[in-house]
């Protein structure tokens, strides 16, 4: 196993090493109960958190910025296009396993098919991922999490450069390398050899933390089957649609949502820039065409769309993973309680003929 031991007091030294040639982002506590990813500076370096609730605003924005310049353009007679590249060498320290799976999903989507997204590719190839496993049942995992159902956690199996896990023995973390770049860090003096007992301890911690998960989404695979076979009736989608407030929040916090819209904005006389920004299928204008015709006008059509896109088997084959990583953010964000687990539950109840929820 490409594993090493590292003392808990040395863990942040990894950040120091990475900061030499990366912009490092890491999770912090805000002023209340909120947590967020931010750029590590000398001032906040010691405030980096290992155990904390997963930040609400997903680290997806470090590969797919919320708003991104695509190119600058001069109109008029001397018109010309100047491409923009806002990517930089960056490391995400402390990204959770669900969000690692989210980035893998984005990889498959943006880089996988006949067209390659150049902007995404530039961000992605410069990214170093240090995954921290959710190992503290009280702090790391909350009631909304369901990564064990989505099979993405609590420990990511792949797609990270380095993985750290608190062994909860008072002193040690187990580090696992997921790439050659990650393995290269093991030459640093604070990485020690791990023994079979440490690997055993890792297993124990993982099996302990699994007990924390309460959300009953064990019906996930059946929901996928029903949605793929179009066995979910319109009535069920209407129930979901009636609860949707069309805020688009679920898409904005989702680590696996990919949709974007594009807009030109004026930056000077005869100068414009084209920007792209996250978009959400919940919003009424998502499919509205010039002239006003909207093929997906009813809200339940748009909700149906979200879950069909995420769970239909066709798309899972295409991207090699479903577009839900079980992070639970849509559960926290949704005022109408139609996050993923809730919808799986609604599908279960209506298709097995129980009373309407």
């Amino acid at each position, binding site marked *: 196993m490409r594993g090493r031991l590292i003392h808990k007091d040395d863990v942040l030294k990894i950040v120091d090493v990475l900061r030499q040639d990366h912009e490092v982002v890491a999770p912090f506590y805000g002023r209340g109960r909120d947590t967020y990813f931010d750029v590590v500076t000398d001032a906040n370096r010691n405030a980096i958190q290992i155990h904390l609730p997963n930040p609400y605003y997903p680290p997806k924005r470090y590969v797919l910025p919320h708003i991104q310049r695509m*190119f600058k353009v001069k109109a008029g007679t001397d018109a*010309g296009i100047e491409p923009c590249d806002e990517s930089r060498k960056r490391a995400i320290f402390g990204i959770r396993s669900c969000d690692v799976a989210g980035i893998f999903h984005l990889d498959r989507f943006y880089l996988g*098919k*006949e067209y390659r997204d150049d902007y995404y590719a530039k961000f992605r190839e410069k990214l170093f991922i240090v995954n921290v496993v959710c190992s503290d049942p009280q702090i790391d995992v909350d009631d909304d999490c369901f990564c064990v159902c989505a099979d993405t956690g609590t420990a990511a199996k792949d797609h990270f450069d380095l993985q750290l896990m608190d062994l909860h023995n008072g002193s040690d973390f187990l580090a696992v390398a997921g790439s050659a770049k990650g393995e290269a860090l093991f030459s640093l003096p604070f990485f020690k050899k791990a023994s079979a007992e440490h690997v055993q301890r890792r297993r124990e911690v993982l099996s302990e933390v699994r007990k924390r998960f309460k959300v009953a989404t064990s019906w996930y695979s059946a929901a996928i089957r029903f949605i793929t076979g179009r066995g979910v009736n319109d009535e069920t989608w209407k129930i979901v649609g009636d609860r949707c407030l069309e805020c688009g929040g679920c898409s904005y916090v989702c680590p696996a949502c990919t949709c974007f*819209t594009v807009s030109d904005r004026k930056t000077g006389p005869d100068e414009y820039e084209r920007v792209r920004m996250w978009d959400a299928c919940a919003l009424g204008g998502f499919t509205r065409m010039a002239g006003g015709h909207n*093929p997906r006008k009813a809200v339940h059509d748009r909700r149906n769309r979200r879950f069909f*896109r995420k769970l239909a088997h066709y798309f899972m084959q295409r991207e090699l993973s479903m577009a839900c990583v079980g992070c639970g953010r849509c559960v926290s964000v949704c005022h109408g309680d139609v996050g993923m687990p809730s919808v799986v539950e609604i599908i279960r109840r209506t298709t097995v003929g129980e009373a309407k929820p």
Partner: protein
Amino acid sequence: MINSREQNVYQPKMAVMEDIREEIQDVKTFYWRFENPEDQKAFKTFMPGQFAQMSVFGGGEIAISLPPSPTEDRLFFTTRRVGSVTAAMHAMKPGDRFGVRGPYGNGFPMKDYASRNLIIVAGGIGLIPLRSVIIYALHHREQYKKIQVFYGARTPKDLMYVENLQDWQKDPNFECYLSVDRADEGWKGNVGVVGSLFKKPGVHMPVENTTVFICGPPVMFRFVLADLKGMGFDDRNMVSTLERYMKCGVGKCGHCCIGVAYVCTDGPVFTLEQIQKLGEVI
């Protein structure tokens, strides 16, 4: 400065407007060329039914049909002024520079239709993508059997590509039938919806070994479909192009996704059978 397509699919190539012609009310045809002859050459590989992404800088970018056939020399767009980008387009003048990228989409598999009869049914500005099919098919006339064109517009003033229509009606190599909903004084042809042409004396539409192309407004589409089905045409042999709000044209932005298909990459050309299987109301 301009990247090759492999580098950045979202970055348009510079193009310049050459000539603008008023087609019918609110519809203009824009003749243009790429500034770089290499881009022009690469672009001219398109097939009928494919589309391009056209940028009016500061106005935005839209997906736009390609009315020319790749066998023709000049490139042009024809658009009706409906939204903000087409409004900006209609305000353009010859010499203005803009961006184009593409071609995108699957296009009509014209080679697969070899040695078949082609029936082309267009209503209003639905002729725009089908014009490409007609010109392409006439250029490769020997590859296809019977070719029939049925085109309907609201009034004689709403008939597009008038010069082409005049040529086509004289052309002995194929049949071209026109119809208008409301005639004016000079109109001598058929009056009625485009479907009324199907039953005219002298019109024989072969059902066997035939591909039918249909493009037009939803109402026309529904009635033509009912007529054709009544005549025994099969869903697999009827093709159309779908329109959706699109931002990227390359299957990434997500706006045009219907059921399991992205209209931009899996379409925009679908057979009627495929459209019904998409599982969403079109």
